[in-house]
């Protein structure tokens, strides 16, 4: 598992995704007026608002697939799989691959969110009223960040599925992007009540998803489990034919 994760984390795709996430969060931030003293915990609320911005929403499917969604394709098409499979076995290979793909999307958002939060802390915390932010402030930014990570994992796995089925990196990168915006268009134009179809709602969770947004978390975890399961089935089918 670790060798696959190390490869993913040290790859150019992950770096590009991480930087794009940082850019997205920074561009989505509404900068406060620093002439006056800022409220306590404002460095957190700045990031919370940024995570709900349109920039973040639009960048999410792109950043999700960049880290590792096309990795199976390059190994499969180059013939590298023939050297890898006897060493690691089919099952281990597939397990490592689907976990690394899903974690690629998740970690790029989590890492970028943490990095931006740290920078905002350094810049804005000294300008805030004295005191420490409350647990609600911390959760207010942490939960949307975790949801961004989960959504990225889902779309990263979806990219992996599309790439393996279509045999093309363009499909691995393109179809999740198209699918994501298709969901937005469908909800905005034809199904305004279908919040489960609306990615911005998955991030913000402002609609009635039940107590503590339990419905939203269940929906995201279920979608992740289904996408990873399907990804595993597709990859296993491909490596079995090797």
């Amino acid at each position, binding site marked *: 598992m670790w060798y696959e994760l190390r*490869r993913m984390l040290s790859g150019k795709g992950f770096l590009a995704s991480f930087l794009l996430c940082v850019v997205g969060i920074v561009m989505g931030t509404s900068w406060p007026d620093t002439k006056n003293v800022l409220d306590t915990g404002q460095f957190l609320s700045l990031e919370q608002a940024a995570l709900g911005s349109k920039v973040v929403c639009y960048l999410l499917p792109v950043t999700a697939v960049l880290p590792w969604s096309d990795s199976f394709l*390059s190994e499969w098409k180059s*013939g590298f799989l023939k050297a890898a499979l006897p*060493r690691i*076995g089919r099952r281990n290979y597939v397990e490592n691959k689907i976990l690394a793909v899903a974690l690629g999307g998740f970690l790029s958002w989590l890492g970028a969110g943490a990095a931006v939060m740290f920078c905002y802390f350094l810049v804005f915390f000294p300008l805030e009223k004295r005191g420490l932010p409350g647990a609600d402030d911390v959760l207010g930014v942490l939960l949307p960040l975790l949801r961004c990570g989960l959504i990225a994992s889902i779309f990263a796995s979806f990219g992996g599925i599309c790439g393996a089925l279509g045999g093309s990196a363009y499909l691995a990168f393109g179809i999740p992007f198209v699918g994501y915006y298709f969901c937005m268009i469908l909800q905005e134009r034809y199904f305004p009540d279908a919040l489960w179809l609306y990615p911005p709602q998955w991030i913000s969770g402002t609609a009635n998803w039940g107590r503590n947004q339990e419905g939203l978390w269940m929906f995201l975890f279920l979608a992740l489990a289904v996408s990873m399961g399907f990804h595993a089935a597709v990859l296993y089918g491909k490596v079995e034919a090797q």
Partner: protein
Amino acid sequence: MQEEMSDRKQGIEISRVTKYFGPDQVLKEINLFLERGRVYGIVGNNGSGKTVLMKCICGFLTTTTGTIRVFGKQIGKDVDFPESLGVIIETPGFLTNLTGRKNLEILADMQKKINRADIRLVLEKVGLDPDMKKPVAKYSLGMRQRLGIAQAIMEDPELLILDEPFNGLDKNGVAEIRKILLELKAAGRTILLASHNEEDIRILCDEVYEMDGGVLKKLS
């Protein structure tokens, strides 16, 4: 002596193996026993079924009927792939945007049997510069073949399955790889080799088989 005899008995046992691709029968009732520690050659025309048989032994393809046991373990039942296997089937494949050494490091990390120093040694052994910064995409056919051999032998596997390992190599390359294979033979490794070159087969192999239209016959 007795131990050596029983060790030899646990070789590669191929029993009544057939393989169909749709209506085409590519392997016809193959029965073969390969003793541990010997070198076997398979010759035959293109499309005769050599590569398919090798892929079945490696575990890349499942047989339609029959069983293959490698060192006591049935392929596809007890294990997916033979334990301790080094393989070159068709053209060796690598991640072309990375250097040869990086490719080997990724493969070595999967089993953690060897370290970075061993990788340098094996690259030098096959005549490649371990410090070369060129990505595999810019390698010549011969360099790729050398790298393929390096990945097959780097973990010192018990069983080597080599399909046309001399493809694309120049005279010196052939001599160097032959020498490596002879060293492995002397070290008691089991090698199954397919080659079009009669000289390779004559020098390296203890027994030679011919594959013709999916039927395997002993030649020597």
